[in-house]
């Protein structure tokens, strides 16, 4: 048994931490979020040059061949720096779907341009009626000769504003909620037959609704059998955003502890009040418990995917509760300052809120955990 990080993992961690410190301070991030694109192309190029975009991919396509732990190390640092660039959408969703479902030719054609930073991607799978049930898919794809043409709408698509390409989930057979009959397609988002409706989210990231009207798509993986790949990719991405959340929670706890030591009321630092001390102990325990369940999910993910599946549901439930406690206390203990847009505290809170509602919220995951654990 060993919970240590390898030397390589520590180097990745240090390299991102250094990037945040030197090139991604709070003022820089604010300017990026306020810019037209809502992301920085030059930061993305730096990610490519530093090798971060290659981490999860196989060496055969020019990747680093990293594990879930490597991904989590990156995502925790992304969380600490509140980095808005689309690592999740491009590398962990678009890239991982191609890596898992694509054939050799597709992997060879599409992944190198992710690694060199020239292609931004996303996964379009949520529909306006679907809430968190991915199989609730009405978007359809018809085969016409060698090509497929896709029609339907996807909503709240991560990074869709800037993505060049998307993997789109569409139905090739079966009924609305069927697991069977769903297929994945690579779609060029710059095609004429794609309409985009952009908007900004409270976590500083951009999303869009995408409408496809007979849009050409290239089949990725076996027709009608998308869900196995989708489940695997989403499971891995859920662990990744839990690591990102842990990064956010750690920063909030540290900053709150510092603030309460500095802030004087009633002629003493407010950290000297027992009532507040105990609350900071609670948030520290929330952080440690979340970290433990994240580690458990990562260990199981590498050994037993059936177990990991249930643990990922558990992780999302515990994360929801603990993130709410941590950001709630961070805002409350910062007092009036905590509710300003100027201070970073609220921005960490908003990212945690978005993570809590990405890939299923607490009710969704608690139900799945219970069904898989207790159903006869």
């Amino acid at each position, binding site marked *: 048994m060993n919970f240590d990080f390898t030397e390589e993992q520590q180097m990745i961690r240090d390299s991102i931490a250094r990037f945040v410190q030197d090139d991604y301070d709070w003022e820089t991030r604010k300017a990026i979020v306020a810019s037209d694109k809502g992301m920085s192309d030059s930061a993305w190029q730096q990610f490519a040059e530093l090798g971060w975009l290659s981490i999860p991919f196989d060496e055969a396509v020019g990747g680093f061949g990293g594990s879930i732990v490597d991904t989590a190390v990156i995502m925790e640092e992304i969380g600490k720096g509140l980095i808005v660039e689309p690592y999740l959408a491009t590398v962990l969703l678009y890239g991982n779907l191609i890596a898992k479902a694509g054939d050799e030719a597709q992997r060879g054609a599409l992944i190198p341009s992710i690694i060199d930073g020239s292609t931004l991607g996303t996964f379009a799978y949520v529909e306006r009626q679907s809430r968190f049930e991915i199989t609730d898919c009405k978007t359809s794809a018809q085969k016409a000769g060698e090509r497929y043409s896709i029609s339907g709408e996807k909503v709240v698509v991560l990074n869709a504003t800037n993505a060049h390409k998307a993997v789109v989930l569409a139905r090739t057979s079966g009924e609305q909620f069927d697991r069977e009959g769903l297929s994945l397609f690579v779609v060029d988002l710059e095609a004429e037959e794609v309409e985009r409706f952009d908007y900004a989210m409270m976590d500083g990231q951009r999303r869009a609704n995408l409408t496809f009207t007979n849009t050409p798509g290239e089949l990725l993986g076996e027709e009608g059998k998308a869900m196995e790949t989708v489940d695997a990719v989403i499971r891995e991405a859920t662990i990744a955003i839990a690591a990102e959340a842990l990064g956010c929670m750690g920063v909030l706890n540290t900053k709150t502890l510092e603030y309460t030591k500095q802030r004087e009321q*009633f002629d003493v630092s407010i950290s000297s009040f027992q009532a507040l001390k105990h609350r900071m102990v609670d948030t520290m325990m929330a952080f440690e418990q979340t970290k433990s369940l994240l580690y458990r999910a990562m260990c199981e993910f590498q050994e037993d995917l059936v177990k990991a599946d249930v643990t990922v549901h558990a992780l999302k439930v515990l994360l929801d509760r603990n993130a709410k406690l941590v950001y709630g206390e961070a805002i409350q203990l910062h007092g009036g300052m905590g509710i300003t*847009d100027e201070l970073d505290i609220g921005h960490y809170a908003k990212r945690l809120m978005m993570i809590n509602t990405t890939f299923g919220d607490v009710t969704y995951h608690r139900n799945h955990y219970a069904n898989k654990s207790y159903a006869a």
Partner: protein
Amino acid sequence: MDIAFSAEDLAFREDVRTFFAEQFSPELQTRMRSNDFKAAIVDWQKKLYDRGWIAPNWPVEFGGTGWTATQKYIYETERSEAGIPPTIPFGLSMVGPVIYQFGNQEQKDYFLPRVLKSEDWWCQGYSEPGAGSDLAALKTKAERDGDDFIINGAKIWTTYAQYADWIFVLVRTSNEGKKQEGITFLLCEMKSEGIKVNPIISIDNEHSLNEVEFNNVRVPVKNVVGEINAGWTVAKALLAHERTSIADVAQSKRTIRQIKEAAAKEINGGKALLDDPSFQGRIADIEIELMALEFTELRTLAAMSAGGFPGPESSLLKIKGTELQQATQALRMEVAAHYQGVLPTDLDPEQLGHDFGSEARRSFMYGRASTIYGGSNEVQKNIISKFVLGLE
């Protein structure tokens, strides 16, 4: 003990319903959500004034309604059902009550009718950068110069200062004795020379908060409410009135209704969220606490109707009321799912695919302030432990 509505109560409820249905127009609702917010609120408050319903909690002699606790309950419930916002508290729930309690005749004659008619927009000059929970540590000073005070310092978290005609401000007039002993409660015109309002954008991305700077601002000594150096008593009385108005159980009940309506339309894998027993449990947990709080509020109202002023028990209302507001706001965010994060407030719901995410976000985010303002909930617990439980 009973809460059965009498025939008079039922007739009263009809009156209230009819008035709201006739007077709170869709046009007014739209204006309240627009840049015309201030004028729309003032128009609405003037309608309430004309009907005689602007200040249900004031004594009749100063312009109150003379309603029983039951009638106040009916009125608040109907207001919330109709989706009508509460009146702006700074005049009607804060400075008005302290003027009729502590003000001299001249102040009562001049200010109270203007508050009732919404002729002046008030704001609250209490907190300072270094004086939040420890309000008595305030440093903004007022020095006597003949018939005037000259104010220097800064106040912060001043809601709607950008709209205000007047600010009631706590100033330090003496450094002798305990810090509570040198404080004075002053009324100051916002157009006075030397006042500067700096906007603060809050966590909901809106501008309602401000910093208000005072640079050699002259205020006539006749604008002191109560005695010079005895402002702490006035300040505390105002806070007790404020606390009572913060609980807003009616609003939380309305949010619960909105949650149920929306959850019935949210479908997960073919099943409505509202039909999901685990989600029903979440709503029930909050609703049950609200059922109790509604009666806690009624008990406080009943005690006040019997002629009392709100006591330290009002801290309980403030704590539980704001906790439940936040719980309902948070649950509404969960119903909005992905859309809880949508930032623009003016998108076409048809195009977006959702119609309340942005509104839920704004209420939730700004709602984080409710456990901080009006005396933070930590301070309220200190008040209860000291003045109710007698713990030193």
